[in-house]
């Protein structure tokens, strides 16, 4: 599709020839995930997670569509209809646990996919569009997951909906009307549940559509690779099929094993027990927490405890709650600008000694934020999340541009093939050196 040396589709089977002449679908598949897509030969296992995210979405679509056949989106019966699925629908427990844990696994692979991109500079030219569409997918996933969590109409569903839609009421003047408009009432109720169900069914297909664009835009420059050095010629690539289909097949096996371990042996480990209590508007849970994949952002939201005021006058310019909301949205939206914030011409973090150190800090920082977001809003968690959130913003908006201008990158390999051959030469040298060293003694 992208490179001049990509193999062109020539159907051997007369049926395929007939189809391809009328609808070039076989050609599209061949160019997208077949032998017609040349891919750098040096991709490591971190390049498996895009395919795995696609598989996770498929699992969610299939289980979700069947669950929707048995679920009733009505505040009076939603909770009981989920229990009906768990008890009386054939393999209903399997469908529901697969869907609930499938959401968690979708986020796990997408987070790994995102951090792969952050480390190896996948957001840099000429792949900015791939990254931008990826952030759009991430936002859509978050919206879908949030609305899906409301559907069982348990305590956390109800109060989570209350808190998250309540964020919009922090907007001055128009906040309250927007809040009421989103919920279809003054508090989460039947109207909210119905619209969330409708959108929860719609958005995954929107995600699928944006994924098509994401992959399309990826195929224009072709996949990046761990060295960050662009493909220079056919010797640098292998055809996607069978090389990467085989590697992805192995990665998929590992993914499914881990998924099955949680799904069959600890299916409630990633959920909150309170969601097995039916929604009760009169009883607020002790700690309202979202699902684990929102914890880092929830920590940022709660980290703002001080209003922005004009000093010595006490005039509040921005109340703390609004600051938290703005920061939470900013923490994701800043990813849209990443391609232009990090101006280092070197893509891969492998050759960026300073960047590498700060990247490790960022990973730890996000894990700390996640931990604090899941903890109750008490000290010392609030103070820790304030420091961690400050680092999060500083990392992307201040530190990255500074690194880009002061860092001295390590020398890059001349080409992908050169890097690959150097690596295997080192390996062989090490093997040869061992007996030589033994002989020398």
């Amino acid at each position, binding site marked *: 599709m992208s490179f001049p040396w990509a193999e062109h589709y020539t159907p051997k089977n007369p049926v395929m020839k007939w189809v391809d002449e009328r609808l070039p679908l076989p050609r599209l598949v061949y160019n997208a995930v077949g032998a017609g897509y040349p891919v750098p030969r040096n991709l490591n296992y971190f390049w498996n997670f895009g395919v795995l995210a696609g598989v996770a979405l498929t699992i969610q679509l299939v289980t979700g569509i069947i669950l929707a056949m048995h679920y009733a989106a009505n505040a009076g019966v939603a909770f009981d209809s989920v229990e009906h699925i768990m008890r009386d629908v054939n393999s209903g427990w*399997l469908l529901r646990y697969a869907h609930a844990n499938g959401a968690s696994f979708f986020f796990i692979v997408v987070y790994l996919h995102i951090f792969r991109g952050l480390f190896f500079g996948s957001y840099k030219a000429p792949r900015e569009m791939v990254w931008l569409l990826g952030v759009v997918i991430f936002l859509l996933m978050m919206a879908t997951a949030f609305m899906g969590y409301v559907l069982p109409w348990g305590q956390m569903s109800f109060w989570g909906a209350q808190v998250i839609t309540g964020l919009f009421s922090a907007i001055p003047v128009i906040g309250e009307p927007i809040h009421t408009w989103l919920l279809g009432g003054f508090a989460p109720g039947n109207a909210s549940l119905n619209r969330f169900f409708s959108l929860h069914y719609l958005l995954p297909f929107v995600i699928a559509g944006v994924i098509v664009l994401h992959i399309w835009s990826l195929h224009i420059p072709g996949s990046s690779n761990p060295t960050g050095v662009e493909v220079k010629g056919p010797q640098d690539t*292998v055809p996607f099929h069978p090389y990467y289909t085989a590697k992805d097949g192995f990665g998929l*096996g590992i993914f499914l094993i881990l998924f099955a371990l949680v799904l069959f042996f600890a299916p409630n480990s990633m959920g909150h027990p309170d969601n097995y209590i039916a929604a009760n508007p009169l009883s607020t849970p002790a700690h309202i927490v979202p699902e684990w994949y929102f914890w880092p952002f929830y920590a940022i939201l709660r980290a703002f*405890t001080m209003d922005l005021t004009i000093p010595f006058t006490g005039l509040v310019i921005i109340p703390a709650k609004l600051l938290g909301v703005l920061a939470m949205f900013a923490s994701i939206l*800043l990813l849209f600008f990443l391609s232009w*914030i990090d101006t280092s011409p070197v893509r891969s973090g492998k050759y960026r000694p300073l960047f590498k150190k700060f990247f490790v800090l960022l990973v730890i920082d996000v894990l700390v934020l996640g931990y604090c977001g899941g903890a109750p809003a008490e000290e010392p968690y*609030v103070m820790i999340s304030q420091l961690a959130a*400050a680092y999060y913003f*500083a990392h992307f908006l201040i530190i990255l541009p500074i690194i880009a201008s002061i860092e001295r990158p390590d020398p890059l390999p001349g080409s992908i093939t050169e890097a690959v051959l150097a690596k295997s030469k080192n390996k062989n040298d090490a093997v040869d050196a061992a007996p030589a060293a033994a002989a020398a003694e």
Partner: protein
Amino acid sequence: MVRFLGGLVGLFFAGMLLLSFIWGAVSYVSDPPAATAEHEFHLHPRQIAWSFNGPLGKYDNAQLQRGFQVYSEVCSACHSLHQVSFRSLADLGYNEAEIKAIAKARQVPAVDPNTGEATTREGVPSDKFPLVYPNDVAAAAANNNAIPPDLSLMAKARHDGANYIHSLLTGFSEQPAELLRKFPDAKTPEGLHYNPYFANLNLAMAPPLTAEGQVTYGEGQPKPTVDQMAQDVSAFLMWTAEPKMEARKSTGIGVLIFLIFGTVLAYLSYQNIWAGKEH
């Protein structure tokens, strides 16, 4: 321009957060949060070696039947089990006639076919366990304003559910003298009962299992001590919350064997295809 504006935004948020941190730290040091009785005296559930623990664990049907007996004779006076249908008791090893008898002994809501008035009839196996009180208002009125929760999902609606229920049922005690000395205001209010396993330490429910032999177990069953009855009913409630657990685990074993086999094949074909290709 993007970097300049981004830097300003970053400085603003990071600055506000650091100010918030300093403010929080100062007030934390100058006015540390007061310790609470809940923080110091709340206990985590004691761990029991349940038959259903672990990836191969199964329910012990004799225990579930004893637990059902405890539920029927003690808990069901106040607590409903409305997600569970009588027919599913077949999982516990009851036969059809026994299930029919269990259902028949309970009155379920119905409509009088002659007058159309609300009435009750004897249960049949396809019915679910009926509610104890017609509604929450009646439940609250009969129980000093505390609504006895439905128990169908209780073992999944609390952290470490089965252990929690067992610890709670056997954990009632006098308030420790140390607690009252440290927190004189935390005296258990009139009408509540001290229990360190309950989140806020004071529970509306009176100790339900108080004496050995409160429930008479059948021939060949263990002695109905308070602890034994509490364990049995906790196991029973684990089953009501997760009736498909055994099917889940056995399916899981099969799926894992299949997946491991498939993954080994996938790995071999990956190695085979990449053989001789340096990467």
